[in-house]
């Protein structure tokens, strides 16, 4: 399993459109991808939009990413990049 940490940088946070983008990306990988919100002790499967929306991650929220599976490195990097790019909203 590989792990990293990201901060939500786009103004709208992990809202519906951003979450849909993340689900689409996560779906391209075989690995399980988990997004954890440590301050609320909740986590989401990055392949489920309902799960991701439940995180209610607004701008500035710190999230932990975990990927586990045959393409975990690639999956983690791709998800990290998407967060850093602010889901194309910066």
């Amino acid at each position: 399993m590989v792990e990293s940490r990201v901060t939500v940088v786009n103004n709208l946070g992990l809202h519906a459109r951003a979450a849909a983008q993340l689900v689409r990306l996560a779906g391209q990988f075989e690995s399980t991808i988990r997004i954890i919100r440590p301050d609320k002790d909740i986590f989401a499967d990055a392949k489920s939009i309902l799960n991701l929306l439940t995180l209610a991650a607004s701008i500035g929220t710190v999230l932990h990413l975990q990927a586990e599976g045959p393409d975990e490195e690639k999956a983690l990097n791709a998800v990290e990049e998407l967060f850093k790019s602010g889901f194309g909203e910066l």
Partner: protein
Amino acid sequence: MIDIIGVPLGFGAGKSGSELGVEAIRHSKIRGSKVTHHLEQLGYVVTDRGNVPIVQPSDGYKTSGGVRHLTEVSLSSANIAAVLIESLNSGATPVVLGGDHSIAIGSFSGIATHFKEKGEEIGLIWFDAHADINTPETSASGNIHGMPLAAILGYGATELVNVASNGSKLDPRFFAHIGARDIDPGEKAMIEKLGLRDRFFTMSDIDKRGMLACVEDAIRIAGAASGGFAVTFDVDMIDPRFAPGSGTLVRGGTTYREAHLALELIAESGKMRSFEIVEVNPLLDQSNLTVELACELILSAFGKTIL
């Protein structure tokens, strides 16, 4: 395969309490069992997906351009739409538990976007005492639960019209409304302007022709869409004698059996792709009558028959 999706949003209405309809329907038992169990008995694989996260208003009754809680409803609608799209993509038939009727903006926007991406048309049958076709210009209250039909037809606040994808979601050719008896003057003008009179089966039409003929016509209209149709059911279509637990009651509604008949016919058609029940307000209910009726209506819509 059925997905239960809760949408506890009640601030689109003037009276609070419909947000509690979700858990009331989920947890009430009819003949000893919850609605999910009854659906399983009918042969469905049922998954309760939990509730769609709602963006709550933080500062009281905020109005923007004559619309109450516009920002919160539009952000929540985007969430609702996204969850509906995910459910339909998985091949499930969503059962949406409301909530007030403003949630139809998000749910139908999601449904329509899903079918559009598949290259299919989708119809809509709308059960309601009201037309829900107000715009910020015609609405006296500014409550969004009186505006969802206008929004999905492409009229009203941009934030509501452009949920999930831009512009109108509903082709009026595939739309039918059943049970109306309380329509504002601005709404009448809108219905006339859009040429929708023959899409409305009002209580007067039901009195004259009977529920059977009206619902058969509605199924024919909405079922002409290549992808089938969605159903949104406001419990205030039913007469307050049978459904007292709702926020905007109007006398002269359908009977208990007429409501069931309508949904039994819809189930028989085999063309329903999504079912939504809204405006069940447990705070205004009497002996859980309306909540239990809502549970029973869900079952009729999914094929429960008397024999």
